[in-house]
């Protein structure tokens, strides 16, 4: 994986409260990257540091091995969690302005605006004030605002919150298209873990400003899964596996194997007990994984 965006040991405290505590992770070329963690874990702080609207106390953000500076940051498309638009400004004028502020020439800014409004299905609202739009449409304008200068990286803070299912579909489709067409990596935070799992190539899970786990979603799932198997055996007694050492029955048809125990022993025992109609490694979903790595001490994290 080519690491395009690297967060390296970021730390930040506000008036004695630690928001980030040596956070590091990397986003690869063309990846859709999910950023998850309980409220107050430091996601927004990390994003604001990436955008340079907040300075880290320590650590560094790098873009293709170079420390992220002002010029490079202009190539980022950013969508803050709350609004991020002038409520009284007309949609098209606003998008053109934001593109220009990001260094795009006026003509190109206008063309990009028209194209993204068309693409997001809000071309007919181009001359309305932002505050006159429905929440869903405002969110589309926000997304257009993040895309209108054709950025090299998208950083979106909770882009899906408050969207209806259609909005979620439109937004996810756009994000996938942008990464596919232009190879633009997208990093976004979300609490909708099923969505993160469906969209993301890789994730970072953080808690209390520290990284808990990060990597490709499938790898993480297997890695964090442990050695857990689902075995269904017809006609076998409930306790068919009890005499095997290092195998723990977790209830239903789940069995956890201690490290070093060969799953084949379990299978052999199962076949002795009856007709095996299901034997597979149990891989937890992201939600389950999240609960597992966060859940234990989620109560400690306050909201911020």
């Amino acid at each position, binding site marked *: 994986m080519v690491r395009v965006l690297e967060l390296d040991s970021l730390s930040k405290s506000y008036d004695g409260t630690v928001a980030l505590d040596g956070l590091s992770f990397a986003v690869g070329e063309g990846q859709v990257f999910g950023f998850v963690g309980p409220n107050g874990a430091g996601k927004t702080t990390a994003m604001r540091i990436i955008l340079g*609207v*907040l300075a880290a106390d320590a650590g560094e953000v790098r873009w293709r091995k170079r420390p992220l500076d002002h010029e490079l*940051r*202009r190539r980022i498309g950013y969508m803050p969690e709350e*609004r991020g638009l002038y409520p*009284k400004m007309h949609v098209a004028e606003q998008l053109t302005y*934001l593109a220009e*502020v990001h260094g795009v020439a006026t003509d190109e800014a206008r063309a990009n605006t028209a194209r993204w409004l068309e693409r997001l299905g809000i071309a007919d609202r181009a001359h309305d004030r932002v505050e006159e739009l429905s929440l869903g449409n405002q969110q589309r304008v926000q997304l257009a605002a993040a895309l209108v200068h054709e950025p090299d990286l998208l950083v979106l803070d909770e882009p899906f919150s408050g969207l209806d299912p259609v909005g979620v579909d439109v937004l996810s489709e756009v994000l996938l298209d942008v990464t596919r067409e232009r190879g633009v990596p997208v990093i976004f935070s979300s609490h909708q873990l099923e969505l993160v799992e469906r969209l993301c190539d890789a994730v970072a899970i953080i808690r209390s400003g520290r990284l808990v786990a990060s990597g490709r979603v499938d790898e993480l799932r297997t890695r964090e899964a442990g050695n857990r198997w689902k075995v269904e055996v017809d006609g076998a007694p409930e306790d068919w596996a009890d005499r095997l050492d290092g195998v723990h029955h977790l209830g239903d048809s789940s069995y956890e194997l201690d490290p070093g125990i060969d799953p084949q022993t379990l299978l052999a025992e199962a076949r002795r007990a009856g007709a095996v109609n299901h034997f597979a490694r149990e891989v937890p979903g992201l939600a389950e994984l999240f609960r597992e790595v966060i859940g234990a001490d989620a109560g400690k994290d306050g909201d911020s």
Partner: protein
Amino acid sequence: MTNRRAIFLTARREVRDRLRSRAFLIATGLQVAVVLVIVAVSAITGGDDTQKYDLGVVGDQEALVQQARAQAQAFDVELTVKQVADRADAEKQVDEGNLDAAIDSGELITSASTEDTLVALVQSAARTATASEELRGHGLSTAETERVLNPPQLERVEVGGGDEGQGLAWIAALLLYIAIFSYGVAVATGVVEEKSTRVVEVILSAIRPVQLLAGKVLGIGLVGIVQVLLIVAVGLGAALPLDTIDLPSSTPTLAILVAIYFPLGYLLYACAFAATGSLVSRQEDVQSATSPLFILLVGGYILSFSGIGTPDSTVAVICTFVPFFAPMIAPARAAQDALPAWEAALSIALMLLAIAALIWLAARIYERAVLRMGAPIRWREALKLVRTPAS
């Protein structure tokens, strides 16, 4: 992106924002309408303050009437001479007020309401008429008598201003106060709007805080200057063709000083309002945060009353040199011809210094506070921020 382009873009947005706003257009229209009404009312009522007198004449008093007409010009009054049939009629008309006074063979018929000016005028005319007759009797030519009796008048020099420019001084102080007030508030609410909507995060990921601040202050200021000039132009444009309105001789100086002091006063207050706005995150907190500035501004406006009443008073002179008060007091004094050039120059120089200092301070506070969300930042904290490196 160049500094200039970043500032231009943000300033242009501010200008468009205002021109697009119905509230702004309505307010401007109202202000122009108010100015027109003021001009119209003063044209109809007080405008023409030249005194008019009706003087009755019994019998042939040609020499005296001629002199009276000449004197009327010197006295700056309009004199209408009416022939009256006889003494009784003259007395009756003066008594009824149809005539202000009447002359009849060496007597001046007056009533209680006859003004001293008219009496003095007629007396002077009578003296001159008699003298002129005497002189001619002694063989002097008409031209010679004229020269003796009507020597060139002393040129009149007015000092201390007096009432002449007071009306204009009131208007100037009020206009500057309202303009600085409303545009200063616009800067503060604009800063907070960007903060509360988090637009500021998006913009500041692309341009620097100082560029956004400069663009905002310049854009709003530009609209303000155009609006103030529009009001002044409409006022003068409406007043000048109506020659019934006497504009004091100080008007051009005043117009220039308004054109200087509005931008300066605006800049000074706009910086202060911007820095204050950056300390809060919600529109609800703007008012309490900016109240110290209101106190300064309203205080300056109230102090300008003393500059209007007694433009040479110590208070007025001192306030001329206090940058936060000067924008309202200096033009008010100038309207009454009571602002010496050196005082104006020093006052403007002090304002420029104060503005330079405040721009520096405001930019530092703004840079450090504008991205801090949450509870309002206290002034003591803000001043501490100034000493920390920018985040």
